[in-house]
């Protein structure tokens, strides 16, 4: 049987990192093509700050999420220690997560994976007069577009073909490909009709404020300041079921004010750019195989979408699992083709 033809749909963080992992795990035994309507800098991933601070999926066991995060953290740790770090947009950043009420303070499942996690001291908390408790730690930030462009470069080096193409129905790929990996993010709502997938709209500001070196995140998850390579991301909003992609000026002012109350020096921020992204939210990441068939024809599908606000934190872990599922699909195809020879 000819080498299985694999198509990965989606060129956001999940599509690129999944395609890369498939290429790394299955070198030489399949051809991989990446298909996407949008590429960096126009993906949802480009809007995100890319901070490695996990979101908790209610529908996934904690030990699985922890494993995904650990794999991702370890992967980025290695990149950040290499001389590719700046090209890949991966950098360490330290900072604080702060709370207004003691009752909101929890030790998260990921506290032993990030670096140096500990409660903030009273002296540190003096910077935040409206907050009473906090946690300090060091983690990674994946700046986009650099990280996505770096992944694209790695894909090409691994022989992955990349095409701009809008896929409206997975079945349309059945004659050209044997296995399709669905990393369409929020696009999966239309692509596969998943009603459990819904957007959580996030508006952010990306500003020039290079003196801000530490991250600050309110434990409520709504207000955050994440310093990137050239810009600081100020956020944000979490608007469930909103599909609105255009920025809202009232929201811009509100975000700016909230962030300035945590970091007054941001009043001097320059060149404010407003972005909107729709977090592809789901109670759990859809990470599973499916077989589509019509008439006598079959198409093997691996789904890897629905990462919501936690995509960056678990991307390498879910890519690993998706690559494993693709391996199973390849084995299944080879098994059925040798049966066909009997």
């Amino acid at each position, binding site marked *: 049987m000819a080498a299985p033809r694999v198509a990965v749909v989606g060129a956001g963080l999940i599509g690129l990192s999944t395609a890369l992992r498939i290429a790394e795990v299955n070198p030489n035994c399949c051809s991989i093509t990446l298909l996407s309507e949008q590429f960096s800098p126009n993906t949802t991933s480009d809007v995100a700050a890319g901070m490695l601070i996990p979101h908790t999926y209610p529908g996934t066991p904690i030990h699985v999420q922890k494993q995904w995060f650990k794999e991702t953290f370890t992967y980025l740790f290695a990149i950040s220690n290499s*001389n590719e770090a700046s090209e890949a947009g991966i950098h360490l950043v*330290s900072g604080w997560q702060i709370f207004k009420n003691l009752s909101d303070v929890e030790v998260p499942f990921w506290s032993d994976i990030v670096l*140096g996690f500990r409660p903030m001291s009273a002296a540190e908390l003096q910077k935040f007069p409206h907050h009473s408790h906090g946690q300090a730690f*060091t983690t990674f930030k994946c700046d986009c577009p650099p990280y996505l462009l770096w992944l694209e470069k790695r894909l090409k080096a691994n022989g992955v073909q990349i095409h701009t193409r809008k896929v409206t129905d997975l079945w349309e790929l059945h004659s050209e490909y044997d296995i399709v990996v669905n990393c369409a993010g929020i696009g999966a709502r239309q692509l596969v009709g998943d009603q459990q997938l819904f957007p959580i709209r996030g508006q952010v500001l990306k500003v020039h404020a*290079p003196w801000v*070196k530490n991250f600050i995140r309110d434990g409520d998850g709504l207000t955050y300041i994440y310093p990137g*390579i050239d810009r600081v991301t100020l956020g944000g909003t979490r608007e469930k079921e909103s599909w609105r992609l255009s920025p809202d000026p009232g929201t811009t002012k509100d975000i700016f004010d909230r962030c300035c109350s945590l970091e007054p020096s941001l009043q001097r921020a320059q060149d404010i750019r407003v972005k909107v992204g729709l977090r592809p939210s789901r109670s759990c990441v859809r990470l599973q195989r499916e077989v589509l068939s019509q008439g006598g024809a079959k198409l093997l599908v691996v789904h890897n979408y629905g990462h919501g606000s936690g995509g960056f934190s678990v991307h390498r872990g879910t890519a690993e699992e998706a690559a494993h599922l693709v391996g199973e699909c390849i084995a299944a195809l080879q098994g059925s083709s040798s049966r066909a020879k009997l």
Partner: protein
Amino acid sequence: MFSDGVFPHRLWNKETFEYLLGYLNSPEAKEMGLFLISGYNLFKQPVPDPSWKNIVLGFRNLTPKELELFPGYSYGWFNTALMLECRSYLPWLTNRLAQRGVKFFHRKVESFKEMFSQGIDVVVNCTGIRAGELQPDPALQPARGQVIKVLAPWVKHFIITHDMESGIYSSPYVIPGSEFTVLGGIYQQGNWNEENSAQDHKSIWERCCRLLPTLQKAEIVQEWSGLRPARPSVRLERESIGHGRSRTEVIHNYGHGGFGITIHWGCAMAAARLLGNILQEKQSQSHL
């Protein structure tokens, strides 16, 4: 940051840190060049905690995982400190002085005597490395440093290494500023040369790139050499020069080595107190 535990350096360090912390959340902070920054002090063997551990924010030892970021170093500290960029701070101070009616003269002062003859009552001597030209001071010596300024905006932490044998500041360090990142690690006692040295450049570049491989991709923007006004301790004291009607009071405030910014405000307040004493004395004298 290295006060050597010498009193009153530690007190001045504390006073300066607390004074600046008070400005952190003010609208002036950016104009002052003031911001918080976290980072690492790295060692090749365990060392006792520094005298300033309770002055800075969030001081702690490094975890084993963190030390994996820095091969070759087996021990270290993490803390959050303050950056005060003088290319912003000096103009800010100048503005505040001008607002208070302080006059500035661009002039070379040849001697304290010159000051008496102009009717000056008190001279505050902040002449740094050149203090010896006004009054010989063998304890004051240059400690030459050289730095390379690069564009590396992905570096968000300071990294200061320590080599107990080569001594302070001669081990590589990386300090990110608001625009440029400074690479350094040169400390040459007794060297008055303000020209950049190619050998020092090579030493800084190679050692810093070994410490932080991503620096290899950083664009070099500037190179600079300067003379730290080093002294076993800061000279902060009064001296009466001349006698009778041509007596002038001098308050010395120089010899801050490589930690002037770290203790400047504490020193300034101490100098101001000395001035206060002088003014009180003059007042009570004038009543006689």
